[in-house]
C-alpha cells in the first residue's frame, strides 16, 4: 500500500468518545483524572458512563439489550452518518470494518445465574427462563457490525477484527485496501475499547516483567475514508503507508533478534514514500518504550492518547489518529507534513501508520 497502481485513500472525518469527551480537540484540554475502580480499589482507570444512542438511527430496544462497549461504538460511529450520506454512494460501495474486543462477561445472563442459585433443583428451567434469546448474539462483534450496517446503509465489503491495540490498525488497513483496490468508494472504520472488567487484570500474567500496570480507559473511535477529499476541507489527510509486525512478548521466544521486527516495520513504512526519519513532521508513540526508542534512534516522539484517557485497546489507534490530526500545527498546512504513528501492544503486535497532511487541493 498504497502503490502507484492503486487509488489514493483519504481520511474524511473521524469521531472519538473517551473520558476527555467526544471530540479530538478535548484530548488537548483539561486532562481527566483516573479513578479507583469499584471492583478493584487498588487499581485505577477511566470508565465511561453508557452513552444514549440516537433514536433516529437505532431501534430504541438496542439501548437496553446491547453491551456497553457496543453502545459506545454505535454512538461514536453514528456521528459519521451525515458525512457518509453526503457522499451519495450506493450502499454496496460502502465498506465497513471493525475492531471490537471480546465481551468479557455475559451480564444479561446474571439473572439466569441468580435464579439458579435460588432454585438449584430447577436449574435448567431457570436457565432457559432467564436467558435472553439474543444473549450470545449481543456478544458477537458481528452484531455490532450488523446494527451499523443497517443504520448507516453499509452493504459493501466487510471485515471484523478482535484483539488488542493491533486490531484497530488491521481494520483501518483492510478498509483502505478496499478503497485503494477499487472494491469500495468509502469505508466506515469503527473500533471500541473493552469494558473495564476484572478480565483486563486477570489476564495480566501475559504482561512482560517490569511492565507498568495497565491503566485502562473506556472509549470508542471511528473514521470515514474515501477515494476523494471533500472540496470544502481545509486540508487533505491521505493514508500513505503502513507496516505490521509481531514481537513475541514471551521470554522463551525473546532473543537477541528482538529489535529486528521493529526495524523492519519502520523501514517498510518509511519506504512507502521513500522517506527517512528526518522527513517526518512528527511521530506519535509510547515514549517509555525502550525497544521502540532504540529502533528510531531516540528520535523525539509525542505520546499518544494513553496518558490522557488510559489504554483504549482496540480503539487506541483510531483515537491516536484523531488526536494527532487535531494538533493545531497541522490544521491548515502550507506543505505536506508526514505524520507517523507507531505502536507496540503488550501482546506483541507492532504497527506503523504513515499519513500525509497536505494543503487542500484547489478546484481547477
Amino acid at each position, binding site marked *: *500500500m498504497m502503490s502507484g497502481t492503486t487509488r489514493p485513500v483519504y481520511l474524511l472525518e473521524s469521531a472519538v468518545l473517551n473520558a476527555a469527551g467526544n471530540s479530538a480537540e478535548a484530548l488537548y484540554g483539561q486532562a481527566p483524572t483516573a479513578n479507583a475502580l*469499584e*471492583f478493584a480499589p487498588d487499581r485505577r482507570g477511566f470508565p465511561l458512563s453508557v452513552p444514549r444512542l440516537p433514536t433516529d438511527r437505532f431501534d430504541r430496544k438496542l439501548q437496553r439489550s446491547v453491551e456497553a462497549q457496543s453502545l459506545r461504538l454505535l454512538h461514536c460511529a453514528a456521528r459519521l452518518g451525515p458525512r457518509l450520506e453526503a457522499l451519495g454512494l450506493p*450502499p*454496496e460501495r460502502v465498506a*465497513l470494518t471493525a475492531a*471490537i*474486543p*471480546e*465481551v*468479557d*462477561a*455475559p451480564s444479561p*445472563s446474571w439473572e439466569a*445465574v*441468580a435464579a439458579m442459585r435460588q432454585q438449584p433443583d430447577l436449574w*435448567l428451567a431457570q436457565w*432457559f427462563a432467564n*436467558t435472553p*434469546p*439474543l*444473549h*450470545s*448474539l449481543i456478544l*458477537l*462483534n*458481528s452484531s455490532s*457490525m*450488523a446494527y451499523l*450496517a*443497517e443504520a448507516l*446503509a*453499509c*452493504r*459493501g*465489503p*466487510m*471485515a*471484523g*477484527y*478482535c484483539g*488488542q491495540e*493491533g*486490531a484497530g490498525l488491521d481494520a483501518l488497513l*483492510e478498509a483502505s*485496501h478496499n478503497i485503494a483496490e477499487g472494491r469500495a468508494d468509502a469505508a466506515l472504520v469503527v473500533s471500541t475499547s473493552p469494558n473495564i*472488567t*476484572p*478480565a483486563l*487484570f*486477570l489476564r495480566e500474567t501475559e504482561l512482560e516483567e517490569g511492565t507498568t500496570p495497565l491503566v485502562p480507559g473506556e472509549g470508542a473511535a471511528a473514521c470515514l475514508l474515501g477515494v476523494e477529499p471533500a472540496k470544502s476541507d481545509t486540508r487533505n489527510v491521505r493514508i500513505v503507508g503502513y507496516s*505490521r*509486525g509481531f514481537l513475541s512478548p*514471551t521470554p522463551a*521466544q525473546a532473543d537477541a533478534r528482538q529489535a*529486528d*521486527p521493529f526495524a*523492519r516495520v519502520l523501514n517498510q513504512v518509511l519506504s512507502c514514500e521513500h522517506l527517512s526519519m528526518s522527513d517526518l513532521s512528527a511521530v506519535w508513540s509510547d515514549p517509555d518504550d525502550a525497544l521502540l526508542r532504540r529502533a528510531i534512534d531516540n528520535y523525539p516522539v509525542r505520546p499518544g492518547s494513553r496518558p490522557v484517557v488510559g489504554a483504549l485497546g482496540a480503539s487506541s489507534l483510531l483515537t491516536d489518529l484523531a488526536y494527532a490530526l487535531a494538533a493545531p500545527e497541522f490544521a491548515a498546512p502550507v506543505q505536506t507534513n508526514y505524520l507517523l504513528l507507531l505502536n507496540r501492544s503488550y*501482546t*506483541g503486535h507492532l504497527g506503523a501508520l504513515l499519513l500525509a497532511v497536505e494543503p487542500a487541493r484547489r478546484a481547477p
Partner: protein
Amino acid sequence: MRRPRIVISGLGAVTGFGFEWQTLWSEMLLGRHCIRPWQPEGAAGTSFPIRYAAAVDEQSLPAYLQTHPAWSSELEKRARYGWVAASQALTDSRLSSVQWREVAVLAASGAPHHWLSDMQLAFPDDGDEQPSWRHVMRRADQVRRDGALRQSSDRLARVIANELGSQGPVLNISSACAGAAQAIGNAFHMLRRGECELALAGGADSVLNLDTMTALYLLGAASSETRWGADLCRPFDAARAGLVAGEGGAFLLLETLEHALARGAEPYAEILGYGTSLDGYKLTAPEPEGRGASQAMAAALDDAGVHPEQVDLINAHGTSTPLNDRSETLAVKRVFARNQHYRRLSVSANKSQFGHLIAAAGAPEILVTALSCREDWVTPTLNLNEADPDCDLNYCPNEAKQQRVDIAISNSFGFGGLNASLVLAKYRSEAP
C-alpha cells in the same frame, strides 16, 4: 503489473472425524458424518434439548500428537484444536523451520467461553447483594484458567505466532461464521499485494457449551429434532430444522507460487479471488432474496477474473436452517443465471458431515474445496432425502461424486449478514 499467484501448500484439520485432514477427507468421500449424541458439560441426563453435535473425540488422539504442547497449556479447547491444526498444516507443508519466522498468522476465533462457575463468582456468598465484579476480583484465584476472564480471544493467533517465532503480521479475525473465510481471504490478499510471502490462516472454535448452545436453541437456530437421531443435519432438505454444531478447526499454509516452487513444494490448489459483503438487513436472518450473499460471490469472481460459467462447484454455507438454505439457493441462481449455469453446477454442504464450526466453519470447508479441486471429487450433502421446492439445485445428495472440478467457490455467511466467498482453482503450472 502481473499479480503473484497464491497457492495452498499445507493442510491441517481437527474435527469430529479426528486429528488429521486425510481422515476427514476419506470419511467424507465414504459419505459418513461425525455427529453423535452430546450434552453440555454439567447437563448430562437433563432435559437439555440439544442432543447431538459433532464433537472432537480427544480419546482418539493419535500417539504422535499426545506430546503436543497444546494439551499441557492453559488454553480454551478451541485454541488447543486450532494450535494442533496449525502445527499439522505446517508439518504438511514441509516448510523449513528456518522460514517459520516469515509466516504471517491469521486466525479466526469465536465468542469466548463464559463458564457458569465464573459467573457464579460474581454473586456474594450471603446472597443479599446484587452480582458485582468486586466479588469476582476477591475470588480471583477461583476463576478458571480456560475461560473468557483469563483468555483473550486472540490467544490462538498468538500461541501459533509464538511457536513459529513469527515476525508477523499476526491478526485475530472476528466476523462470526464468516471468520475463517475472512482469515484465509485476508491472507490471500496480503500475499498478493506482497505484505508477506507465507501465511498460516484458518480458525478454530467450539460452542459446545451450555452458555452458547442455550442461546442458539432459544434463537431457533440449533436443531433439537429427534426424529432422525444423529442424521438431523439436513441442508437443503424439506425437513431441515436448524444447525448442528461442531467443533475443531483447520489451518492452511498459503504462499506465493514462486515461493512454493522455489522450495520444491507441491501446491494442493490455487486461490484466485476473495469477496465480501454485508446484508445490512437483520441481525438474526439473512436477506431473504440472498442479495448480500450473491454480492459476495460476485465480488470474489470479479477479484478472481473468472466468469460464472467457469465455476464447477459451490461449497455452500448450507447450515440446514430454513432461512439460510433458501436464500443461499436464490443467491446462487442470481450469480449463475446466465445460460442457467446454476443447473450445471454441483453444490455441496459440508456441515452435514462435520457440523457447523461457527467462527471456524470456513476453514475446513475451504480445505475440502481445495481437495475437491485437486482430486476431482465432490463430497456429498448428507440426509437430503426430500427436496425442498425452494432449494432446487444439484446438491450431490448422500453420495460423493467424481466430477472434474477446475474452479470452485466456498461460501461462508455469518450471523448479522456478514458474507465471504473465496474462489479456488485446480493447481496447474500454467496460469488459469
